[in-house]
């Protein structure tokens, strides 16, 4: 009898251990197991003060030399900052071949490969102001979001398609699936459109009354629904499971502003302090747990990347000194296991505590002068990428590809790059 008891106990322990050993990302979708998923993966209400990364010292000071995290790989980034183009850009992307595609202030779409620039679309006098411009993650499509419609430009075929009656900008997933709000009969419904199929029809995913909201792909099965950011409003993040059509509340904070990177399976979040002033900045894990960072910046000033190994980087970098590097193929690239967060951080942290950070920044009442740091997400080790006090960059639209940091400097709207 005792043996039976022992066997049953062991079995229960094994089953529990097995269930709890699933990673949050790959947890089974069984209803019964949701408890275990929630137990393991859902964020707790008191999150926010967990862990911390090395502090960035008060304004005017760089990291002190006795700080082990200071510049520990000897990066001297000052000489590596390079202006990519004198063109004033509205937005840009970089494809995996290292080609930069940028949209200038007159609406021209320009492809830049090394020193060569090619205008691939010129709107001429028909240029109209776009509400915003975004890109598919693979840079194959450019989305021009107008107030109530969007035009999608296919970079390779140079053809246009259009989505009408939009009520949000379009979010495009890694699998090239578009998601957006569409106004119909007084409702704002969530639609999905497969951009990989030429004649695909949009599919209605959910009928909602959500107003003034945006969609972000968390992963291939989940959309994040967020409020447009403001320091003075209690903004939310809701999670919508596209497969099960279920909704849940993730965050609900004053001045919340989220940025998510589907590829890195992580994000950054800012939320305001009392009365909307100042705030706190967090790293967001795939399960939405938050890890506080000891500096304030805006999510638009940070992005993730997985560095290429040195060998792969050299063989794939067209500007490499390696004489054999004639290809720009990425087929053999192997990202390292480490994930880094590249963040531009305002040098004057104190002034932010007195500002409605999001509102003042977005309305151009606030410009910042930034340093750039590289933070290892796993262990918090931080390196300085750029901290030249004689140069001034207000970093916006930061992206990292092929071991280079790209950003638009809000002081001159030019595109810059820094080698990592």
């Amino acid at each position, binding site marked *: 009898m005792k043996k039976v008891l022992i066997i049953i106990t062991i079995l229960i322990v094994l089953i529990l251990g097995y269930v709890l050993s699933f990673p949050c990302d790959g947890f089974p979708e069984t209803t019964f197991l949701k408890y275990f998923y929630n137990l393991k993966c859902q964020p707790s209400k008191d999150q926010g003060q967990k862990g911390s990364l090395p502090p960035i010292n008060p304004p005017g000071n760089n990291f002190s030399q006795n700080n082990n995290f200071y510049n520990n790989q000897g990066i001297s980034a000052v000489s590596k900052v390079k202006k990519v183009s004198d063109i004033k850009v509205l937005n840009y992307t970089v494809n995996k071949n290292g080609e930069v595609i940028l949209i200038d202030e007159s609406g021209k779409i320009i492809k830049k490969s090394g020193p060569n620039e090619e205008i691939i679309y010129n709107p001429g006098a028909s240029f109209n*102001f776009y509400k915003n411009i975004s890109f598919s993650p693979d840079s194959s499509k450019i989305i021009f979001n107008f107030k109530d419609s969007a035009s999608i430009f296919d970079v390779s075929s140079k053809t246009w398609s259009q989505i009408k009656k939009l009520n949000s900008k379009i979010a495009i997933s890694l699998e090239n699936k578009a998601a957006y709000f569409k106004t119909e009969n007084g409702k704002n419904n969530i639609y999905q459109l497969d951009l990989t199929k030429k004649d695909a029809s949009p599919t209605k995913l959910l009928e909602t009354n959500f*107003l*003034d909201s945006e969609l972000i792909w968390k992963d291939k099965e989940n959309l994040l629904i967020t409020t447009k*950011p403001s320091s003075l*409003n209690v903004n939310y993040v809701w999670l919508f499971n596209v497969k099960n059509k279920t909704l*849940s509340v993730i965050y609900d904070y004053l001045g919340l502003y989220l940025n998510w990177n589907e590829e890195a399976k992580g994000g950054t979040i800012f939320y305001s302090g009392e009365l909307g002033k100042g705030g706190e900045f967090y790293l967001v894990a795939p399960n939405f747990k938050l890890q506080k960072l000891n500096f304030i910046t805006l999510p638009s000033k940070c992005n993730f990347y997985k560095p290429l190994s040195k060998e792969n980087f050299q063989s794939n970098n067209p500007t490499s000194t390696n004489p054999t590097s004639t290809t720009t193929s990425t087929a053999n690239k192997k990202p390292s296991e480490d994930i880094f967060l590249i963040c531009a951080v305002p040098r004057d942290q104190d002034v932010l505590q007195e500002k409605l950070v999001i509102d003042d920044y*977005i*309305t151009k009442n606030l410009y910042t002068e930034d340093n750039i740091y590289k933070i290892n997400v796993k262990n918090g080790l931080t390196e300085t990428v750029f901290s030249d006090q004689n140069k001034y960059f207000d970093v916006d639209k930061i992206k990292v590809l092929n071991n280079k940091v790209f950003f638009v400097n809000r002081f001159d709207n030019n595109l810059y790059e820094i080698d990592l």
Partner: protein
Amino acid sequence: MKFQIKILIAILFLSVFFLNKLVFAQNNSEELLISWEALNYTPYDFYGKNLPSPGSTINVGFDFVQNGKIVDLSQNKIYWYINDNLVSNDKGVKEISFIAPNLTERVVEIRIELPDFNVIKLIEIPIVKPRLIINAPFPKKEINMNEFEVSAIPYFFNLKKYDFDEININWSINGIDALGKIEDPFVLPIKVLGNNQTIINIQAYAQNVNDESETALDEINLIFKK
């Protein structure tokens, strides 16, 4: 059956019962997902939230989520309160519109009650003045060029056609009236004579031509330094 086996079975049953309770509790969540929008003017590239100023139309909508699914409320009474005043208690009304009040209060409280589900939720919508920002993208607000431009950007004005023509803009430099560009009065060209270090005070004042009470002012100091 032996006593131990009975105990074991009882423990297993209790475990399953409590586990199910917990699973049920996790899935039995109820949430009112409330969102709102304010209809007023912001520039084409503004990606923040339009905040209502007095006179802006505000739309508020919600969905009630139970066990992750949106509930059909077409047959349920929904109570809407604005600043504690009942404005609707009809069945199935999931969206209301109203005009933002003046700034006697800094927020408007919206309360939604679903008595059939014993659910109440309250949100606050901030009311702000229209804003005018002098856009001067110069590091440390220092400038070393003798000729340069700044621009004024209006936010949250209640315009009829959402057109710049509906806003009058007036400029002054160091207290003296100045003129914006003829082709774009929202851009102010500035010319500094000489190379001495000086502080340039710039003021901009905007007024809605449709509603003269709707105004906004901004002021900055730039340091001219060669």
